[in-house]
Structure formats: C-alpha cells, structure tokens
C-alpha cells in the first residue's frame, strides 16, 4: 500500500467526492465526516511520501497504468512537490474541520455537493502538484478551476459576476498554458517533463523562437492563474465575495499551487540558463514582482472590507514569490519555496481568523474588529501571530522567508526588489497595526467613559467572551502554532526539503 501512496493521495478525494454526491439523504454530519476522513487519508499518504522522499533523498516515481514514461503518465514527487503536497493536504484538512459551522451557514442546501466540489478541488490541486506530465497538469488545472468556480459562486449575490470574471480570466490563463504546451509539443514531440527537459537542452531548440513563445505563453497563463500584478484584477473580487469556507480553502492554495507550477515549468522543464540567457524579458519580471508587492500592500491598506484587504495581501505575497523565483540564485529560490509553505499557512490563518470574526459578528468591515481582544481573545491572539508573520517578525515563518528573499535580492543586486520587500513589510505593519489597535482597545468612547467612571479594580466593564465554536477554534490555533513551528524548524525545512530541490545552475 505504501508504494501506492502517490496515487491514493489523489484518488481518495476523487472517490470521496463521488460518494459525497450521492449521500445527500444521509445528512450533513455524514458528509462532514466523510470529507474529513478522505482528506486525512490524503494527508497520511502525502506524509508517507514526504518521509520516503526525505529518507531516500530521491524523488518518488509512480507510473500510472504501469506504462513507462514518456509513453504513459507518471507522478513525480520530489522534495519540492512533497512539501507542497503536505501543505495542500494540511490546509485542506484544517479547513475541512473548520467548515463545520461556516459551510452550513453558507450552504443551507446541497451541503454534500458543496463538499464534493471541495474534495474535487483538493484532488485537482494535489494532482497538479504530483504530476510529471505537462498535459495532465492542464487537465487537473481545469478540475481545480471548475470546482473552484462552483465553490466561489456559492457566495452571496455579487459573487456570480465576480466568479464569471474569474472564469473568463481563468480560462484565458489555462488556454494560454495549453497553447504553450502545444508549442512545446510541436517542437519536441513529448509531454513528459523529464523527457522534455532533456530534449529542450538541444542547441537547436535553445535558439528556437517557437520554444520561446511556448515558454512565454505557459508562464503568462500561469501568471494569470496566480494573479501576478497586473493580471490580478480578478482575484480580490472573486475571493472576497466567497463564503468563509471557500475563501479559507481557495485563498491559501490556488495561487500557491500556481506558483509551484511556475517553478516546475521554469526549473524542471526549462532550466535556469535557458530562462536567463534566451528569454529577453526575464530580467523585467523582478520589477513586476516588486510592483506587485508594493502596490498590492498599498491597495490592501486602502480597503475597508477585511476579506478584500486579505486578498490584496495575497496579491502582494505573489509578488514576493515571483520575485524570489526570478532572482535566479539559491537564496531567492529557497525564499520562494519556503514562502510557498509559509504564505500558505499565513493566508489560511488570516482567512480563518477573519472568518471566525465574521461568523460571530456578522459583519466583514474593519469595524468588526472593535474590541476583539476582549470578545474573542484566542482568535485575536492568533490573528496577531498571523499579522506578525505577514509583517515578518521573528520567530514566525514570515520572517524567515523574508530573510531568504532579501538575502537573495541583495546577492543578486536587485535593490528595487529588496526595497519593495521592505516597503511592503512596513505597509503591512501599518495595515495590521490599524486593525489590531482597534481590536485591542475597542471603542474609543468606551475607554473614555470608563476612565471617568473610575470603577474600582475588578469591576471594570465586563465583556462577555464569545469565542467561535471549538471546531473553528482548534484549526485556527493549530495554524497559528504552525506559523511558529515552521519558523522554528526553518533549518530542517531548508536542509531536508528545499536544498535538495534547488535546481542546478543557480
């Protein structure tokens, strides 16, 4: 069974979604239980694979249908994908547990179908990460995209139009990817990543214009999918209008997996030398990334709606990730990969915390934060941790990704990117400070009246603690702890996972 972990990890959620479609009459608890069970199964499989990869120091290959690649499709789980797989499963599992109340609130009917799409999305993301075939990646990309359209459209009224725009942009992105794959296929005749990377090293293909167009199209498609500035316009609307569970699932994962795909295409299919010597525009990407980081954060600062604020933070973080990947040095690459993990957890944590606030207060503007530390101390505490991580306060994981990214920027002499990172960090600090200040002190008027009344100690105003339900709180606290955990175990993550996946030549 252990040998089949790579396949099971992807297939189990597929089975779960099929069964979930049919078990409507069994009730909501059954659906909830099955979803958690299936994703826990995936997580177990992902962990088994991770351990195997780390122990042997080699990638795990799984041949679908026992066909030899490049004829058949194979799954390749190396150090990079193993980490991302565990991240996907973990985030999905936490969201699944968290969803007990929020999913019901958002889906008065057809909860089981909602969960079926949930499981399909997870399967799609896992498949995208595990596959070693560029066309298979397209199919799974579409699965995750389709199920995410369904999930996002379950939000309130305005969600439909936002989802429609996402669908149009998502289709353009996926189609560009497909066209790029077509260009690469026409020049090489292969679809298997390992095979492609061998063929693409031939000198005549290095010079080929068509291969360059193919690469450009693929990267452009992936950028649309991951919402890199200036192609990000669809993301904030689509994500901020979704239901809480949907946002918690999609926001951390979709864009991160797209970034992973970008890394795969850049460094597994193509190679560093090719990208930075043959592709004329590759040096400009760092400026795009810098603009994304700074403008994303500044736009986030100007938002009133909490969720919209968070979505612009995602746009900024995508800037960090892209910049790290295109710095073309070890530190930058390490930072980018580490930040995939860190930002996945950070975004999850933020969305969960905000989701809990919205669940309790029923409003999603910044006013909902008023006096949060008194009303929901645990949620507020976790939000503080997540904010510290986004700003980059040690020892949370956000600090270490920034550490590597800045180091990479300094080594590469990309001062614009370094400055963008620092400015974005400071803007994030202002942003969260404003929120948390409100959360900390509550209403200004309250403090003043209280001072006047001068109540003796102990009888100060009593605010009823109204925490979110335990099923929401536990995943939230766990994620918050994971932000510290990942930060403290940065050494292990870097040494046992990321270092192994550093592509040759950078």
């Amino acid at each position, binding site marked *: 069974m252990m040998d089949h972990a790579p396949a099971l990890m992807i297939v189990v959620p597929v089975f779960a979604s099929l069964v979930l479609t049919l078990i409507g009459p069994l009730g909501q608890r059954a659906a909830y239980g099955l979803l958690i069970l299936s994703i826990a199964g995936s997580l177990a499989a992902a962990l088994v694979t991770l351990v195997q990869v780390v122990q042997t120091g080699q990638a795990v290959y799984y041949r679908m249908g026992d066909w030899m690649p490049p004829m058949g499709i194979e799954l390749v789980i190396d150090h990079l994908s193993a980490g991302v797989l565990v991240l996907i499963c973990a985030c999905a599992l936490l969201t699944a547990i968290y969803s007990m109340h929020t999913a019901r609130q958002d889906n008065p009917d057809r909860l089981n179908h909602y969960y079926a799409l949930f499981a399909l999305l997870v399967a799609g993301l896992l498949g995208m990460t595990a596959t070693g075939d560029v066309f298979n990646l397209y199919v799974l990309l579409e699965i995750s995209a389709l199920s995410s359209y369904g999930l996002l459209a379950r939000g309130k009224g305005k969600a439909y139009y936002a989802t429609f725009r996402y669908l149009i942009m998502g289709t353009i992105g996926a189609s560009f990817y497909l066209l790029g794959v077509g260009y690469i296929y026409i020049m090489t005749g292969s679809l298997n990543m390992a095979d492609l990377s061998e063929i693409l090293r031939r000198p005549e293909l290095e010079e080929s214009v068509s291969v360059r167009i193919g690469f450009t199209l693929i990267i452009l498609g992936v950028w649309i999918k991951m919402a890199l500035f200036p192609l990000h316009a669809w993301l904030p609307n689509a994500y901020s209008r979704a239901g809480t569970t949907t946002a918690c699932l999609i926001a951390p994962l979709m864009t991160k997996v797209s970034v992973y795909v970008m890394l795969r295409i850049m460094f597994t299919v193509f190679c560093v030398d090719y990208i930075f010597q043959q592709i004329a525009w590759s040096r400009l990407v760092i400026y795009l990334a810098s603009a994304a980081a700074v403008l994303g954060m500044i736009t986030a600062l100007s938002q009133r709606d909490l969720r919209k604020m968070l979505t612009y933070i995602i746009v900024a973080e995508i800037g960090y990730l892209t910049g790290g990947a295109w710095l073309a040095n070890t*530190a930058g690459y390490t930072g980018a990969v580490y930040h995939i993990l860190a930002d996945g957890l950070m975004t999850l944590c933020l969305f969960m915390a905000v989701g809990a606030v919205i669940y309790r207060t029923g409003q999603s503007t910044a006013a909902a934060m008023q006096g949060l530390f008194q009303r929901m101390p645990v949620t507020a505490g976790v939000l503080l941790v997540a904010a510290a991580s986004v700003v980059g306060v040690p020892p949370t994981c956000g600090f270490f990704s920034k550490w590597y990214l800045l180091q990479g920027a300094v080594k590469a002499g990309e001062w614009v990117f370094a400055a963008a990172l620092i400015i974005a960090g*400071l803007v994030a600090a202002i942003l969260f*400070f404003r929120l948390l200040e409100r959360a900390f*002190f509550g209403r*200004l008027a309250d403090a003043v009246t209280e*001072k006047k009344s*001068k109540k003796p*100690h102990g009888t100060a105003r009593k605010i009823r603690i109204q925490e979110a339900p335990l099923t929401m709180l536990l995943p939230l606290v766990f994620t918050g702890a994971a932000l510290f955990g990942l930060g403290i175990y940065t050494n292990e993550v*870097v040494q046992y996972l990321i270092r192994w996946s550093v592509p040759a030549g950078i």
Partner: protein
Amino acid sequence: MFSAAFYQTAPVMALCASLGAVPLIALSRRHPNLREFWTFAAAGLKFSMVLLLAGWVLAGNVVEVTLIQVLPELAIRFKVDAFGIVFALVSSFLWIVAAAYTIGYMRGLSEHAQTRFFICFALALCAAIGVAFSGNLLTLYLFYEMLSLSTYPLVAHHQDKEGRGGARKYLTFLLGGSVGLVLPAMIILFTLGGNLAFADNIHTGIIPAGTGDTLVTCLFFAFLFGFAKNGVMPMHAWLPGAMVAPTPVSALLHAVAVVKVGVFCTTRVMLYVFGINVMEALNLGIMAAYIVSFTIVTASIIAMTRDNLKSRLAYSTISQLSYIILGVALLTPAAVQGGIIHIVNHAFAKITLFFCAGAIYVATRRKKISEMGGLGRVMPFTFGAFALASLSMIGAPPVGGFITKWYLLKGALDAGQAAIILVLVASTMLNIVYFAPVTFQAFFGRVPDGETRDTGIREAPLIMVVPIMAAAVLSLLTGIFPGVMMQFVRMVIP
C-alpha cells in the same frame, strides 16, 4: 559552586523565568496578590540566575548556548559575556524594584487591565534579558522586536486618544527603524560574510576584509539610526510621545528596558560587529560622536523648555543616552569604559527620577514642575531622592554620574577631541540649569497661589517610597563603590 553544565542552562532559565511567569500571571488574574507574587518570584529567580552567571563570568568564563538551529547557517544563540552581564544585572535587578513600585502605583490609582500590564511587563523584561544575552545579531533582532511589541500595550495603557497616539508613534519609529534599516543591514552583512555571531573581542569585528568603505559606512549608520530605541536624533521623536504611559512604564522604558536595549544594541554592534579597528580606520567613531553630541546638546536645550516633569525627564533621557554612545564612539579605553558604566549609572538615577515623578503624581496628581513649589517640605523622602538622582545626572560627586563624566572626559582628552570636551561641559551646565530648579522649587519655592498649606498632601504609599529610596541609595553606592561594576567593564576593555 555549580557545574559548567548548570551555567549552560542558566541564561535560558533566566529567560524562561519571566516567560514562564506570563501564563501564571494570566491564570491568577482574579487573585491580585497571587498574581503579584508570581511577578516577584520570577523577578527574584531571574536576578539570582543573572547573579550566578555574573560570578561565573567574573571568573573568566563565557557561556555560549545554541538554543535552536533556526537556519542552516544561523542559530538562536546566547552568549553571556561581561558586557551582556552588565546590562543583565541592571535590568533584572531593577525589575524587582520596579515591580514593587508598580504594584503601589497601579493599586494607588486603581488602574484598569492590571493583569495585561503585568504580563507585558514580564514579557518586556524577558526580551531585555534576551537582548543582553544574545550571541548573534539575529537573536538580538528577535528580542529587540519582541520588546517593541510587548511594550506597546504598556505605552498605550490609558487607551485614550493621547495614549493611542503616543503608542502609535512609538511603534512607528521602532518598527520603522528595525524593519526598514536594521533588517536590511543585517541581511547585507550576512550576505557579505555569512556570519552574524558577535566577535570575541572589541577590536576585530566581523566585517569581512575587502568590503567597500561606503557600504560599511552605510551599514554603520543603518544600525545607528535603525535601533531607534537609542533615541539618537532624529529617531528620538517617539520618546516624548511615549510619556503618556503610566509612570512605572516610563521608568521602565526610559531607565531600564527599552532605551537601554537600544543603546546596548547600538554599542554591541559598534564594538562587536564593526570593531574598534574598522571604526577607527573609516572614522566612523568620530562621525557618530559628533552626531550624538548634537543630540546631547539639543535634547538638553529642549528639556529646559518643558514644564511637564515627565517630559523634561524624557528629553534628559535622550541626552543622557547619547553619552553612552558618545563614550563608545570615542574609541579610547577610558571613554568606552565611561560609556558602558553609564548604562548602570543612568539606569539607577533615571529610574529614581521617574519613580519620584510617579510618586508625586500619586500623592498630588500634579504633573507640572511649576505646580510643585513647596512640595519638598511635605514629601521630603521623595524629593530627597530626586535631588540625589539629579546630582547623578549632572555628574557631581559622590553620585554615580560623576564616574561617568570622569571617564568620558578622560577618554575625550585621550582622543584629543576638544570639541567633545566642550560638549560635555556644556551639557553639564545645561543639566544643572534644568534639574536644579526642580529641587530648589520643591524645598524652597513658594506654594502656588490659591492653595493653603494644609491640603492633606502626604508622602506616597510606603511600597512606592521604599523602591525610590532603594534606587536612590544604589545610585549613591555606584558612585562610592564604582569598582563593583567596573570590574565587568574592565573585562570588556582593559
């Protein structure tokens, strides 16, 4: 007395003492007495740990502990050397004093959110010890940020508009400096040499040979201004703003934890990252000396114009902190010694002054110097202590401040910097001008109009007066027996 292994764990235990107190304080929030007991217990435990370590370090040992290997090339690392011990001793001892005083103050005024206050207090002290024991820049940075964040609720304690504004400014400057300047400088430094551990002596530093002069200069100033807690102008603006905090916080911030951490970090980096050799070669020391000289004089002049006692003390702090940096920047042995010993002297004197301000407020609800005429006659102990501490600030024998001035002047002479000597003399004059009237008014001044003599004003509660007296006496003792602390300082620079 103990095995070497014990001393390996002692720094961690000192740290955990205050960290461990946090949940205990939080849990016993309904029982104020128990809660205060935990604070004292933690403070006591911590001080005894530091004391033991001090003995061990005095015997010529250096404790180095790697807590967590957080990056492949970098660890959270502690290193207890003489320099760190000086600061750790001061901060851990003053925690005990401050805790006693704080309890009196908070209960005297029936302040709200006392539990939160004590938790943050404990966290801040934990961070201060962490900074003192840091073995590399990363660890230093970590605890530096922890201190900024944990003191924020203290500064904003009153939660009114003024409190929030001051706290906002406080955090803006501190985080702006650390994230905007220190972090990049640290990363550039790491990229250059792949090493952030402090050097073993104060001469060599860890700047790799062959680094461009301009780059080193930029890094130096990034650190100097980035550690905004040190109050060097123009990064000082948070300090008067943070005055809105309750007085124990001001005392803690401006005497022990925050500003001293800033100065400690600055001097740590100057001596153990850049090293005297590099600073001499690039004239960094002398540039820094002139910058802080400007701060010394300007801050003193502003202090003269302030009527609010705490505000005046705040500007005095800005000015006094720069003495420490000035001493180190002059680079001659005597000056460096003077600078380091001033960490101790200023701490004791300034905490006394703030305690006095707080005691006056608790007893009379008065904040302005002009309202304090004649108060000395009803509050003799408080104002006596105030007078003693003022003497230390001015630098008159036999109080601790004199030792500082002595060494600093000697150092400036050695360095041949006439201008600096002039600055020192001028600032002493200014100190006299703004401190002497306070005491004078209190004892010999007229009671303000419209107030009868008998307003029922009495000394502050005993639990406040005892710490005040203790701090004042210590301030005196450091002047009479400078050797106790000087032996550590001499280990830093003979």
